[in-house]
Each structure stands twice: as C-alpha cells, then as structure tokens.
C-alpha cells in the first residue's frame, strides 16, 4: 500500500512525537537535573560511602549470579534441545515462567519458601540467613534472570545440530572435550548475549530484591534500592537523580553491547 505523503508525514509525526514525549523528554529532564550543578556535584553524590557500597553490593550480586546462570543456563538449554525425557514441554513453559511473574510476587514466594516461617525456614536456625541477607537477594536475582541465557543459547543449539558433536565423539573425544571444542565455541555469541541481558537485569532488579533485603545503607542496599531510599527516606532528590543517571549510563552501555553483538552474530551467520 502506497501511503500518500500527508498520511506518511502525520504517521511519522505521531510515532516520533510519542517516543519523544514518552522517552526523550523525561530523560532529558533528569540529565539536566543531574548536571545542572556541574559534574563535580554528580561525582560527589555517587561516591558517598553508601553509594560506593551499594555499587559494590550490586556488582557482587552480578558476580555470583552470572556464573550460576551460565552453568545452569547451558545445562537447561542442552536438556531442552538434546534431552529426550517426559515432561520436556512442561520444562519449556517453566523456563518462561519468571517473565510472567511480578517481581513482588517473586519476593513473596521466596519469603514463603526461605523465610523464618517458610518451608525451608529451618536453614535460618542453622545460621544461614537467606531472607534479609545476601543469599536472598542472589536467589531473587537468579529467579528473574533465569530465562535469559537459556533462551539465547537454545536456538543456537537447535541450529548447529548434533552432527559435529557426534563426529567429535566418533573420533574419540570425551564429553568434556566435545563440549569445550565444539559446543561452547558454537554458542559463544548467544551465550554472551544472554550474559549481557543477565547483567543488565541483575543490576536493575528492584521489586524482587527490595522484598528480601533489609535495605540498610552500606550493608544490604543495592544501587536500585539506593535510588529508592534516597528519594523516599532521605528526601535527597538530587542524590536519587545522580544514582539513577549512573544506572542509566550502565543501561546505555548494555544497549550498545547488545547492538554490537547483534551485528557480530548476523555477520557470522
């Protein structure tokens, strides 16, 4: 259908206007508010002891969650693609489940499993504090990021098929050698993409983490909790803007990485 010029222009105006008002204007305002007192004020605001320990905690959670998700993500993807067992289709649905569950509901569910009165509440009396401790925040983050690696690796595994792996096995390679030499190189870009998505979500998760964290500044406050606490508890609007801008910068880097990886993947295919 060949749209006439006036229709084309008005559709373009509507689309770009919508994006401009919804995305660009608010982001412009927050950048202005962050830097209106100069870059020094911004730097000071994101290097307070509470901010630094929030950054460290967020990075620590990422450092634990990413390796866990990589290992189990590959295991689950392999099971979904290569496995022949009853309930495989059910497992497919379970992998997508975290996308459909509200972050708050994730938090509540974890409290009911790991909390003092939960099914696994006994671990707390053994001195292993899950809820209101680091383990709780890590488990919550694993829950919400679980689908990413699986969903990025799975299609690649389908695509490459099993022939090369079988050939390697016939030539006497053991399972590990086949995995390291054949499977891993084939899935590396998909895996990297999944990791980038995991990092972004892990740094940015708020709802699930706030439910299972005690939220003490300097102890159990992640970057997103810091933004919230600065705005709500400290009435430090500027501090909240600064921390949000820091998170936004990370998000933009993630976005650039994703674009680069997309290009890399499509040129290699």
């Amino acid at each position, binding site marked *: 259908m060949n749209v006439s010029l006036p229709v084309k222009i008005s559709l373009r105006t509507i689309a770009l206007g919508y994006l401009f008002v919804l995305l660009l204007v608010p982001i412009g305002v927050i950048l202005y508010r962050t830097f209106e007192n100069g870059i020094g004020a911004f730097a000071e605001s994101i290097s307070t002891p509470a901010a630094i320990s929030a950054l460290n905690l967020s990075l620590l959670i990422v450092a634990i969650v990413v390796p866990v998700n990589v290992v189990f993500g590959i295991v689950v993807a392999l099971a979904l693609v290569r496995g022949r067992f009853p309930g495989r289709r059910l497992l497919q649905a379970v992998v997508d489940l975290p996308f459909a569950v509200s972050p708050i509901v994730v*938090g509540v569910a974890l409290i009911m499993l790991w909390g003092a009165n939960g099914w696994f509440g006994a671990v707390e009396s053994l001195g292993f504090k899950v809820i209101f401790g680091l383990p709780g925040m890590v488990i919550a983050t694993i829950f919400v990021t679980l689908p990413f690696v699986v969903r990025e690796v799975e299609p690649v595994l389908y695509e490459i098929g099993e022939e090369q792996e079988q050939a390697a096995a016939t030539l006497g390679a053991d399972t590990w050698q086949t995995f390291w030499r054949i499977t891993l190189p084939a899935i590396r870009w998909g895996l990297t993409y999944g990791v980038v998505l995991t990092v972004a979500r892990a740094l940015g998760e708020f709802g699930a983490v706030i439910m299972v964290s005690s939220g003490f500044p300097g102890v159990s406050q992640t970057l997103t909790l810091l933004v919230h606490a600065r705005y709500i508890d400290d009435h430090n609007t500027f501090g909240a803007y600064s921390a949000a801008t820091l998170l936004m910068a990370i998000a933009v880097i993630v976005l650039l990485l994703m674009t680069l990886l997309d290009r890399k993947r499509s040129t290699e295919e």
Partner: protein
Amino acid sequence: MATLWLSLIVLLPLAALAAHSLSDGFGGFWNAVTAPAALATLRVTVGVSIVVAAINAVMGTIVAWVLVRDEFPGKKVVNALIDLPFALPTIVASIVLLSLYGPQSPIGLQLNATQPGLVIALAFVTLPFVVRAVQPVLIEVDREVEEAAASLGANNFTIFRTVVLPVLAPAILGGTGLAFARAIGEYGSIVLIGGNIPYQTQVASQYIQQQIEIDRPVNAAAVSVVLLLIAFVALFVLRWVASRGLRRQENDR
C-alpha cells in the same frame, strides 16, 4: 539436573506461595481476595493495565509501521531507542518520569499519585513489546498483495483493514498480551510516581508489599496467586486467539 534446578529456583517458591495462600483454608483465601481493599487494588491494576495494553496496541503498531515502511534521517537511532525501556532499571524509569511529572516538574504538569501517572509509567516500561513483535512481521509481509488490492481500486483504509491488519493481528495481540502481563505485575516503575493511595492508585504489587509489611502474609500470598492467575489467563487467551487467527489465514490460502 535441569529439572531439579528449575524446580528449586522457580517451582518450589511458587508452590510455597500457593500453599501459604491456602493455609487458612479456601475460606481464608476467599476472604483475603474479596476484602474491599484487595478488590479495589485488583480493579485499579486490571483497569490501568487494559488502558496501557490498548495504547500499546495502537501506538506500538504505528511506531513499528513508521520504523519499517518510512525512511527518515536518524531512523537507526530511533530504532535503537525502542529497547531503552528494557535496558533501563524500572526504578530509574520511575524517577525519570517523576523528574518530568513530579513536584519539580519544569512544565508544571503534576501527574504523580494519579491514574494517568500510572498509565504513563506503564506505557514507558512496556513500549518495546508490541513494536518488537510487529516489526519483523511487517518486514516479511508480502507487498504484492497490497499492490494487487490497490490496483483493483481498494483505498488505503480498506487495504489496511482487509490485507495488512489480518497478517499483523497475531503479532499485535501477542505483544499486547506481554505488555498487559508486564503491566499487571509491575512495581519498580510505579513505586515513586504511583502514590500508593488505597482505592485510587494503589496497584496490586504495592498492596501485596504492604500486606507483607503489616504482617498479613496470607493476604499477600492470596492476592499474589490471583495476580499470577490473571497474567497466565491473559497470556493463554491471547496466544489462543493469535494461533486461531493464524490458522484461519492458512485456511484462507
């Protein structure tokens, strides 16, 4: 091992949640869900989410259309921008919108603690769903059919309604369903701009969080289960409608 891992991380917590919601029997569950405050918060959540889903269906399709069929300088940048709401932490989305529509608003427009504020926050975080669902379908669409319809004298509106829309409908519905499911459970983007006013702007996730804080875990668990069910039903129904539409198209050919 894969099954064990998924069970431990995903299924077991949800099972504990479901069990806890029934710990006072089905009567307790029913009372928790039909409490006036719980019903009000579910009504607000579903109502606002339907509005947001509808906005997404229309605006998302227009944006996708412009990104595929139109040419203008800077299109690549705009295209990359679409993913920003997914990359941005939800709490950042909240504070970004608050800087424009909050107490410090430079345009004097205050939308915090109002339902329009909720709609804007949710439209922000759900923007990519419909756009990214429709875009690839629109690229693949066979334009010859459109041209044939045009040469037979059909006007643009007729072509869109009878040729383009049926092809796009499954993608639009799919994206809208995802946007709705996301909106239903959203918390981070709403927590600062929503105001959390019971009966007016308190959404279900805020109500659940409040019930945990005042130590009413059964209420929290019960409303959580309802929220989950609404999301599942929405996704299931839309998937069913979409696959039916797809099948009808194939039968037509």
